[in-house]
């Protein structure tokens, strides 16, 4: 009887370790979108990313004086396309929205700002 809770706890803790490992091994990228505010920016970008099977992990967004800035942390692991091809796909969104969309891997930020 006493074994069951311990057994469950053991399994849960194994899963937590795997989730944590999964987090470390994920290929994260930062997508920054800037330009004049217009309707449908988030929808358009998010749809495109979903089409490429790219999961959005975090978003921060602000509008200052009609100028829109959004930063998204995304997971590239699910995407079939390589980095350069993903970047090309984003080009259609850039052209439609007339906004600047810049994508780069998160490694550079991790390298600079974490010991």
């Amino acid at each position: 009887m006493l074994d069951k809770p311990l057994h469950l706890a053991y399994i849960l803790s194994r899963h937590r370790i795997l989730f944590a490992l999964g987090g470390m091994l994920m290929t994260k990228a930062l997508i920054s979108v800037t330009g004049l505010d217009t309707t449908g920016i988030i929808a358009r970008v998010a749809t495109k990313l979903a089409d490429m099977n790219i999961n959005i992990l975090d978003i921060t967004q602000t509008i200052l004086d009609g100028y829109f800035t959004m930063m998204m942390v995304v997971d590239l692991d699910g995407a079939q396309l390589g980095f350069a091809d993903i970047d090309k796909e984003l080009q259609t969104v850039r052209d439609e929205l007339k906004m600047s969309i810049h994508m780069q891997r998160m490694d550079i930020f991790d390298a600079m700002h974490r010991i």
Partner: protein
Amino acid sequence: MIETGEILQTMRMIQEENFDIRTITLGINLLDCADHDPLVCAERVYDKICRTAQNLVSTGEALELELGIPIVNKRISVTPVSLICQGDPRPIAQALDRAAKETGVNFIGGYSALMQKGATLADERLLSSIPEVLSTTERLCSSVNVASTRAGINMNAVREMGEIIKETALRTAAQDGLGCAKLVVFANAVEDNPFMAGAFCGIGEPESVINVGVSGPGVVKKALEACKGAPFDTVAETIKRTAFKITRVGQLVAREASQRLGIPFGIVDLSLAPTPARGDSVAHILSEMGLEMAGAPGTTAALALLNDAVKKGGVMASNHVGGLSGAFIPVSEDIGMIEAATAGALHLEKLEAMTCVCSVGLDMIAIPGDTSAATISGIIADEAAIGMVNNKTTAVRVIPAVGKKAGDTVEFGGLLGFAPVIPVNPFKCDDFIARGGRIPAPLHSLRN
């Protein structure tokens, strides 16, 4: 989780403060290309370089896109050619230049000889070919090591190099002596320097190796703008932290490039290397520290602090730091240095003092075209002595501006920049240089 402020700081560094990876340099061992027939050797050299470096430029470009940081140059360094050449070295020079063009790199370094104690026959052949080679190739860089702390100064080589620099300037006079911008005379040359023109792949290096040079004088200056009036402790700490961040990116790029190319990672050179672009100047860092202009009293102290703080910050950021790793003071490649020299604030003598506390020597300095070979040799001897006694690398890369005198300007273009011709002490050292022989190694070289 990385915070928004940190992300914006990094992006500002790249977009506004001229932060970039200055070079990915692929070192290639060419010892196995040696052959008694120079043409066979040249072909082997060409083939090996094209094979080994075929993906270098494309990998650099892919990393640039993915990491979002400019990787300005992709370069190659090779084994000092005098070690692989058993006959006429000129076909090898041409092969190196062709290979550079084929692989798409903008410079290839290693047309070099290490003669700190004396010259081999191959060294002599290479030396005498330098003026012709540097005027008939585009991307090849050459270097000669004439002194070391262990061996002393080879004053025969020093005398020869004065003559060779003069002749190279004459042969490339139409381009303001551009040949001399691709020629460096060293004391205590290092085997893993990724920067041109002094890069070569030393014989202690592996079969091939990736070395990375970062650059961020603009970033350091910007960071110091927040410490106006603060004591030097704060200045040093600020530079250290900034150098850490800069070097960390160099380490990331080096590891990635190494992994993709399947070539071992060598070192990150954490030097602050300026460009002529505004906002990318080491001299402006010195001004930001409180000097009216580089060259004013206090310059040597300021540079000493900068050089040391850069090293302390960078060393924590990478597991293998090497190359020259310090602050660079090339006159024509630094808008602040150009301004200081033009204004008369910066003289050759002050530059010489500065070379005692930074990581290069007298670099990219245009001197009057009528400067004698013996005087150039005297300048080399002085730099060699500083390097030898202080157990550091020093170098001379001076460009005699044929037909021009102090106050005129020379123009090289691109990263090599432009520079005012600065005056040289007119008193002679002909008898001194004519003596030849070796200046013995200093006592403290006996460390065993």
